[in-house]
């Protein structure tokens, strides 16, 4: 029987004490495993939420409120400044114009409907769109057609400048980013309402525009738009050098905050710079709290386990001081005696770890649920529309009845004049949906923690063993 086997055997010399030590160790290790799993689960959730937030920053004229208007347009010079900033990968500039039938041959592909009549055409109210009729009489109105000049037609067709989720070029071709041609890509709703196909023409600002492509963005509203080269729209609309929105894509989610600050410094008071990250971070704060709590509890549990083992082993060495002296006297080298006690300590640790791991895994899910639910609001929050209205309509357009228009306050972020379909972000509603799982990292942690606990727990005992002098022990006989 070698020292290691004697150590394992010694671990059960005092059954009650051994069971007690193993149970206490198991509780501490179960807590640490549960906290690790909770931490990993919360971390995964945080990362997934951050990933969905994206790394897009929207820059709009100061006070600009989507379709409600407001503010002074940004300029090409502003675009240049933003492009020159570090950590900026893509800059998309857009100039949005809404044309009524007096300025374009196109008609809207979307009917106002009763809601449109209610919000936009009410006599005496602040209507939107293009109204006909007289004050006090029944009015009808049609939605204007939105023209978007963009320098990123490729991105625009994949959910960029025109908002929407999945704009795809269904017919024809796109145009170059720096094109100055009188060309357009029209949405399927516009194409259908105006019988347009690739090669067709229409007029806007008194100029004949050729349709080079047709896109589908998956919704009638998003398909009710016209995309044209930025320079062309700037020239034709008499808005040379102006842009109404800039979308900046940061190099990564991690640099969004930094880039946002840099843009604010670069453009000063001329622009509102927004990203969803700040809002998302606020919503993630409770989960970050859970992460912090679980991290500290995890560390505390491991340290507690190590201290428990350390005190137990100190007690055991103290009890067996005489036996250690005898072993040394009859020729046991220090390494043999130390090995025996480390084996005993390791036996406690391994058994405590196995029991603790099993219970830790079993308890991880309920503990995580309790932690998360007690730290997050269970109320579903309305994240707001991701941007203002840009597409159809145009709130604030003077109705027949006239009346002043005041942009609504609170709620949605300005968003630089682009309407985000699916912009309702019920992030908080999913924050409590944290799923736990046991991965390789958990197993590795359990192994490393067990070694750490065993090493710390044995260290002082080993020191005491080395210091025991057999002559002194035997002299006291």
């Amino acid at each position, binding site marked *: 029987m070698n020292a290691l086997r004697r150590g394992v055997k010694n671990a059960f010399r005092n059954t009650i004490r051994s069971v007690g030590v193993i149970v206490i160790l198991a509780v501490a290790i179960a807590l640490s495993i549960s906290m690790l799993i909770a931490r990993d689960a919360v971390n995964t959730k945080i990362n997934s939420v951050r990933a969905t937030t994206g790394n897009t920053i929207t820059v709009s004229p100061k006070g600009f409120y989507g379709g409600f208007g407001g503010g002074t347009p940004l300029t090409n010079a502003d675009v240049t400044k933003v492009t020159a900033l570090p950590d900026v990968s893509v800059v998309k500039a857009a100039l949005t114009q809404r044309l009524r039938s007096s300025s374009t041959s196109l008609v809207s592909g979307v009917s106002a409907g009763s809601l449109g009549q209610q919000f936009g055409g009410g006599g005496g109210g602040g209507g939107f769109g293009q109204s006909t009729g007289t004050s006090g009489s029944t009015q009808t109105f049609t939605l204007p057609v939105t023209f978007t000049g963009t320098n990123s037609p490729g991105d625009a067709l994949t959910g960029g400048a025109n908002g929407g989720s999945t704009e795809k070029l269904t017919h024809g071709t796109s145009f170059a980013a720096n094109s100055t041609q009188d060309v357009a890509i029209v949405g399927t709703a516009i194409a259908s309402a105006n019988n347009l196909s690739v090669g067709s023409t229409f007029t806007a600002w008194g100029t004949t525009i050729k349709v080079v492509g047709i896109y589908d963005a998956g919704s009638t509203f998003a398909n009710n738009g016209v995309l044209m080269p930025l320079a062309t729209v700037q020239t034709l609309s008499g808005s040379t050098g102006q842009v109404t929105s800039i979308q900046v894509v940061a190099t990564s989610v991690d640099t969004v905050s930094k880039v946002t600050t840099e843009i604010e410094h670069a453009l000063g008071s001329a622009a509102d710079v927004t990203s969803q990250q700040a809002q998302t971070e606020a919503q993630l704060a409770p989960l970050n709290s859970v992460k912090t709590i679980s991290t500290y509890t995890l560390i505390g549990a491991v340290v507690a386990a190590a201290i428990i083992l350390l005190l137990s082993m100190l007690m055991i060495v103290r009890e067996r001081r005489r036996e250690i002296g*005898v072993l040394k006297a*009859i020729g046991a080298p220090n390494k043999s005696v130390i090995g025996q006690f480390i084996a005993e300590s390791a036996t406690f640790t391994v058994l405590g770890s196995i029991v603790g791991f099993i219970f830790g895994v079993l308890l991880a899910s309920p503990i995580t649920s309790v932690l998360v639910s007690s730290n997050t609001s269970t109320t579903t929050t309305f994240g707001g529309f991701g941007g203002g209205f840009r597409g159809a309509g145009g709130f604030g357009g003077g109705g027949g009845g006239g009346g002043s228009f005041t942009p609504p306050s609170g709620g949605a972020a300005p968003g630089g004049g682009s309407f985000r379909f699916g912009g309702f972000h019920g992030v908080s509603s999913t924050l409590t949906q944290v799923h736990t799982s046991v991965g390789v990292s958990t197993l590795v942690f359990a192994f490393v923690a067990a070694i750490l606990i065993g090493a710390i727990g044995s260290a002082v005992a080993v020191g005491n063993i080395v210091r025991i002098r057999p002559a002194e022990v035997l002299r006291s*006989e």
Partner: protein
Amino acid sequence: MLSVANLEKTFHTQAGDVLAVRDVSFVAGTGEMVAIVGPSGSGKSTLLSLLGLLDAPDSGSIDIDGTELGSLSASQRTEFRSRQVGFIFQQFNLIPNLNARENVELILEYANWPKEERSERAEEMLKLVGLDGSKLERRPSRLSGGEQQRVAIARAFAAQPPLILADEPTGSLDRATGQKIVELLRRTATQQNATVLVVTHDDRVAAQADHRFEIEDGRLTEKP
């Protein structure tokens, strides 16, 4: 053969220096039994610790079978002890959670005996001291005092050390059992060619030794 010359050991205490062993010299031959008698505090246990290499002398020399032990390092002393010195204690000092056979095997492990021979050697030694059968598998707590001391003797002789140090080997035993243990010690010493040094209060034990010494205030004198 054990040869001790001019051995001295002083303990430095708060009350002052205590000269525990003073200029001790003697020689004990192979197979002989030497008895050292003396009252408590006379220096018996200190002398035993020095001879067993548990403590280092301030001066003097100890020579066992031609090996001078004064120059050995701590680890060398430990190794030497495991092979060359056997200990028998008054309280037996067997390892409580090992059975009789395992207690004897333990010393063989420390003495680096071949693994496959340890069990056989342990049983041989236990049989030599009168223990066999189910008693080999008993833990010390299930053995009588005399049986425990027999296990201790088997353990001390198992690795065939040339020197056996016995500290009051009969101190915890009744007279009859003590007598049997002394006879066993003598017999085993002869069979194993070992020098046995017995520290005792008991004149009857000392009377059976080949040489008798008395120690008082650290000084050793031979008695007729």
